[in-house]
């Protein structure tokens, strides 16, 4: 069949329509068959545990249905709100800091580093923190902030910037800052990589035209580049909010949730409810509450995500 014939609209008539539907049905069947292993895996590792969690959240230890009692207990526990507040503070510190630093670094490299070799080196360096296990990051951070032998205090005192030991992990405000700094170190490169990739998609002609018109670097960023980056900011928020809700390892190693409960984030709190208090019903109720909340948030965020364009 010639190319022209292939591009012509199919003639109307019952026979060709049936043939097309048959072909489409065959293709759909093939597509579903190929997708089946993936969908099956998702069903086993996501759907079944979720259904079990929901079931656990509405039953007692002996399996009797107790309605929403576990949810009521979860919501009436003051420690839940402490954990929620600590998680909120943590997110307010890390998310803007990571986005601002990642953006600044992406713009800096995009505009000043032109050699491909150097860009590749920076790319590799940026990937490194992302592949380090969180436990290892926590252990190294402890060597930096630990009381008595922490490297940071040593340098501050050697440089004359501190006369006595700063209790980085012992004062609530500083402890929160310290655990947040670890997150910022590990995840700012992720923001940088995403935004740097986004900056590569900005059409060169638009930038050159703006420069001819006398656009400054700031107006160039605000009126052209930001337009291309906006969906990526949502994408970053999408992933980072999920990560913030999962933060566990380095907080556990650095402060154990202390002083008191000042750095007991939601994930650490849920861990303790499940594995210290062995209150599976309340832990499941908390997990479902978090999942529902985050699903609502994500459904709002995804409305503005450029899924089609991606």
């Amino acid at each position: 069949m010639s190319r022209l014939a292939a591009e012509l609209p199919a003639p109307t008539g019952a026979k060709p329509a049936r043939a097309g539907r048959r072909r489409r049905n065959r293709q759909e069947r093939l597509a579903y068959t190929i997708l089946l292993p993936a969908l099956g895996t998702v069903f086993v590792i996501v759907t079944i545990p979720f259904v079990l969690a929901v079931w656990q959240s509405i039953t007692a230890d002996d399996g009797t249905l107790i309605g929403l009692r576990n949810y009521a207990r979860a919501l009436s526990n003051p420690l839940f709100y402490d954990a929620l507040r600590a998680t909120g503070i943590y997110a307010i510190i890390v998310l803007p800091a990571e986005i601002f630093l990642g953006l600044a670094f992406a713009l800096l490299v995009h505009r000043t580093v032109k050699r491909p070799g150097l860009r590749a080196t920076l790319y590799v360096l940026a990937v490194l923190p992302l592949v380090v296990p969180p436990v290892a990051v926590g252990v190294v951070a402890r060597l930096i902030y630990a009381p008595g032998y922490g490297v940071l205090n040593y340098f501050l005192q050697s440089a004359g910037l501190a006369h006595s030991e700063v209790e980085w992990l012992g004062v609530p405000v500083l402890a929160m800052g310290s655990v947040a700094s670890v997150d910022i170190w590990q995840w700012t490169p992720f923001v940088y990589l995403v935004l740097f990739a986004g900056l590569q998609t900005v059409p060169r002609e638009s930038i050159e035209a703006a420069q001819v018109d006398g656009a400054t670097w700031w107006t160039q960023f605000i009126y052209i580049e930001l337009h291309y980056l906006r969906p990526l900011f949502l994408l970053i928020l999408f992933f980072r909010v999920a990560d913030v809700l999962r933060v566990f390892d380095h907080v556990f190693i650095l402060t154990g949730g202390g002083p008191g409960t000042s750095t007991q984030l939601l994930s650490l709190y849920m861990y303790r409810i499940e594995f210290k208090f062995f209150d599976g019903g309340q832990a499941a109720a908390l997990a479902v509450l978090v999942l529902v909340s985050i699903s609502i948030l994500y459904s709002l965020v995804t409305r503005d995500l450029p899924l089609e364009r991606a």
Partner: protein
Amino acid sequence: MQRITRREFVKRTAVTSAAFTSLPAILAACGTSTGTGSNKPSKLVIAAVQGVEDGPLKKVAPNYKSQTGIDIQIVELPYPQLFEKLVTTFQANGSSYDLCMMDDPWMPKFGTMNALQPLDSNFGFTRDSDIPTVVYDVGTWPPPHGPVPPSEKNKSQHLYGITIVGNVEMFMYRKDKSDAPKTWDEVLTNAAKYNAPNFYGYVIRGLATNPVSSDSLPILWSFGGNIFDDNWKVQLDSTASIDAVTFLTRSLKKYAQPGPQSTDAADRSKLMATGKAYQSTVWPGEITGIVEDPTVSQVKGKVAYIPIPQGASGKGLGMMGNWLLGIPRGSKNGSAAADFIKWMLKPENMRNYVAQGGIPIRKSILNDSSLASANPYFQALAQSFDAVPNWRPRTDQWNAVETIYGTQMNATIAGQIAPAAAMQKAAADIRALMKGANYPS
């Protein structure tokens, strides 16, 4: 090249996927003996805690293979993950592990769950007079003394675990500077006397929950305080308990290192090993792993180890922190697993275990003067066993109790709350918890 149809392609893909998916299960089935408990398996799988506790076990395991032909596979997990893994495995009655290492406070949880096979009735274990009675008691469920959880009162007692790491919390001080303190008052006096810039009179291990709980309980008990009395009545807000907590978090804290509320065991050992601290409580694992390790310690030979000093009660009460070996109920190799425990307990094998850094439980080894210079804490450990150290309350709610108590202790060390208020809060929360778990409140 032969062409295949789309249908054939899909079919082959499905078959290949199924084969790959099944591969781990097939390999697992091939690698594990699935016979009855009396069959000789090719290997035994031990779930162990990662760290100084299982290091010597890993070193002696090859000897067992050379003597019996049975391979010992040690699956290491960090402390919290090991507990979670064991709980979930036991809940599913899984057969992944033939033996498991257990911290002694886990015994009530596992005992209540009926998670372990009895070593006495199933495998003929009897008490050996060379091993302290308390070592057998700590592996027995329901507990032979102290309060018994209401749900366990009608169960018959059995031995479920045998200690392979004879941890008991003790006390260490710089013997090159002073004599041994006999009481906590002397500890305080010495702390004040030797405290100096960059040299701390006392080290508090005050990190939230388990660390600060472990550090403070010997002081609490030695002052006559307690978490529960013999009827599960909460005692944390008693005068003796509050006095003990005030002593640690106010009096001793004056001479402690900066940031005690964020200090864990490794930090404490480092402070001692680098010559920056005078005294503290200590676990044997810290001694062998850091303080007496010549490759990292600047104070080797300058530190002495003694049982916990006496408090206001007139007693000095150490705390059990034994690591036991038990056989999960789901294990299909119970008999072979029991043989391995018996092999570990043989005097000659325990001596070899000690040579690899193991912490023994046999009195004859702990009191062997030929081993004293290489193991300067053995005598103190033997004395601690003789004094019968306390164990943490034998309740399946212990993890929750410890979390509540350890959080309030951490807050009061950080200065966020007064000692009395912290203990009143902890006592109220623990009462509510225990009431919910059907304990007498």
